[in-house]
């Protein structure tokens, strides 16, 4: 970079409406709506109240994981271990909850104990990831890659220790309600959980000291350190938050499926990171908002749901999904160039 001799460059003013749209942070939302409208003509069922509610329900757990991931991405890290946290928490939590000889079965506290077990798994794995990246200066990509491999294997191993079957069922009704229950006549209870998590995450990122520190560490860790930001602590907690978010998502998934299974969430990793990045969160740190992540997750969920409704062969599903993501990315890239050109 040469030192620019331009003193102040403010955002270029957009003249045309479509241009303003292209440049706004709501672009992904607009693309989603546009896509939805197109799909409406192909599968009218997508616009029924049931399907819409379904989309909402399907979004929820993915969104919680993506919110956790957003924290890690902002500090320029990556958490590949989220799926294995979901799986591990699912079987450990279920082994505490289950009526088939669960550790807390019959104590009367099984639901509380179970939920604590879920969260504990997420917190422990997140802590491990955080410690390794901050104390031993290991790249987060590889740390979380190894924790992903380890706990994916460990989840299956744990299940075999606990039961002869491939999963742990017979979970208490009260727990299942978390994943399946509704409130206000039809809104999923998971929405409530997500509102709390998302609200808290948004608050942390935009209104608290820790939030500002996250961005500072992501933008320039050395400058942050000199400015008195406890860089290691900030990164450490980002991983813990990501771990706990994955564990909360695991509660929702496990509750929905009424089963603790060791293969839960194994395929969602690229969806999670993809959603955040499509929303606009940068893989290189310092850039991201909860709202953007929500848009990204919504975008991917709507695509998935529409493809499911169409019931096409898997080859077309893959090709279409990939093309749509690529098209969205191209539009985003063009937008960035417009921003630079002014």
């Amino acid at each position, binding site marked *: 970079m040469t030192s620019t001799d331009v003193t102040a460059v403010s955002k270029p003013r957009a003249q045309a409406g479509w*241009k303003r749209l292209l440049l706004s942070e709501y672009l992904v939302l607009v693309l989603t709506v546009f*896509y939805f409208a*197109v799909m409406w003509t*192909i*599968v009218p*069922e*997508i616009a*029924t109240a*049931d*399907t819409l509610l*379904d989309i909402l329900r*399907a979004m929820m*757990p993915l969104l919680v994981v993506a919110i956790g991931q957003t924290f890690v991405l902002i500090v320029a890290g990556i958490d590949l271990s989220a799926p294995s946290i979901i799986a591990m928490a699912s079987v450990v939590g279920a082994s505490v909850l289950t009526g088939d000889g669960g550790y807390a079965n019959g104590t009367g506290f099984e639901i509380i104990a179970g939920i604590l077990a879920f969260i504990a798994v997420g917190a422990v794995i997140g802590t491990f990831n955080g410690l390794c990246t901050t104390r031993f200066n290991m790249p987060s990509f590889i740390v979380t890659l190894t924790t992903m491999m380890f706990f994916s294997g460990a989840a*299956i191993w744990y299940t*075999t220790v606990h039961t*002869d*079957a*491939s*999963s*742990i*069922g017979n979970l208490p009704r009260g727990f299942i309600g978390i994943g*399946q229950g509704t409130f206000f006549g039809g809104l999923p209870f998971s929405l409530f959980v997500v509102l709390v998590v998302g609200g808290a995450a948004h608050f942390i990122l935009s209104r608290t000291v820790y939030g500002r520190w996250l961005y500072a560490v992501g933008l320039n860790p050395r400058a942050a350190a000199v400015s008195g930001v406890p860089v290691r602590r900030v990164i450490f907690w980002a991983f813990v938050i990501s771990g706990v978010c994955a564990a909360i998502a695991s509660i929702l*998934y496990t509750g*929905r*499926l*009424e*089963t603790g*299974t*060791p*293969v*839960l*969430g*194994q*395929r*969602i990793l690229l969806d999670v990171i993809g959603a955040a990045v499509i929303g606009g969160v940068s893989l290189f740190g310092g850039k991201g908002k909860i709202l953007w992540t929500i848009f990204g997750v919504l975008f991917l969920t709507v695509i*998935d*749901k529409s493809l*499911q*409704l*169409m*019931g*096409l*062969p*898997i080859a*077309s*599903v893959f090709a*279409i999904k990939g*093309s*749509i993501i*690529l*098209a969205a990315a*191209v*539009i985003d890239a*063009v937008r960035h160039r*417009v921003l630079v*050109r002014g």
Partner: protein
Amino acid sequence: MKLSRREFTVGALLAAGTMGLPIMVKAQGTKTVALLFDSLVSPFWVSGIEIMREKAKANGWETLENISDFDDNKQFEQVKAMIGRKVDGILIIQTDSKAVIPAIRAANEAGIPMVHFNRPPAESDAYSVAIQADNRKIMADTVQFLVDEAKKMGGKYKACLLIGDLGDVNAIQRRDGFFDVVDKNADMIEVVARVSTEWNADKAFAGLTNALQANPDINFLVTSSDFMHPQIEQVLQTAGKWHKRGEEGHVLFAGFDGDEGAYARLKDGYLDACGVQNLFLEVDMAFQAFIDMWAGKKPEKLLLDPGFVITQANLTEKQDEMWGYTVWKKQNG
């Protein structure tokens, strides 16, 4: 803002690709059945979905498809999407027997009949019909045949089992069927290798190669699925152990499923036995269950396909029931 011509062209192409999705037209007055598979990794599933498509067409039904890629949650989403499309019946191959229960409940609530193909769900209060091959028994019978062969020849045997995905019930039932028999004959057969394949050809290849490296004297080989035959053949060939029955150094070899590759290897004398799932029967049973449920009947929750063991001895007599033979016949004129 200027779009270069290149950007425009690419953008336009991508947009055209997105818009050009096949327009779905829902036929009036016919039945629509959803086929929800968790994967199409082995010929068993591929042939299964093809047979279903054909038979559904013959019945005048429409089909919709979804593949969940082993993701229980995604499959749940797919069931809900199918309910959203108001299909008349849902045929499902779930990954996990317990995690599918909410999906059954959802189908019950919507009044849509659900049939589980090849894998039954766990016990629950929800109602659905499952068609299943008797995995454990078929595998036990198959291995029993192999053991009997071994006894005839005498001597000690070193066995290797290729296990499927440890998260899959079928894999576990087949493994258990194997050990039901082998454990009873522990004096004669020593299991020296259990290769974890995760239903992955490439892992199977590497795992078996390593196992043969560690135990070059393996002479008793059972695979949990026939789709791994090509890898097994490749490994045994490389190790110089691929011989027909009756030839010096033949490895006792049994498979499971009954696909076209298994038929070919039986015919050529490399494979000793194969536990066959009767795919035609299973599809018929499944579709009959739909028809019954539409008619207001309530079939049994679990309908078993007894399957059978096909061996060198009964090959010509039984081959017409083996689905792999039909596929093989089609492929080889």
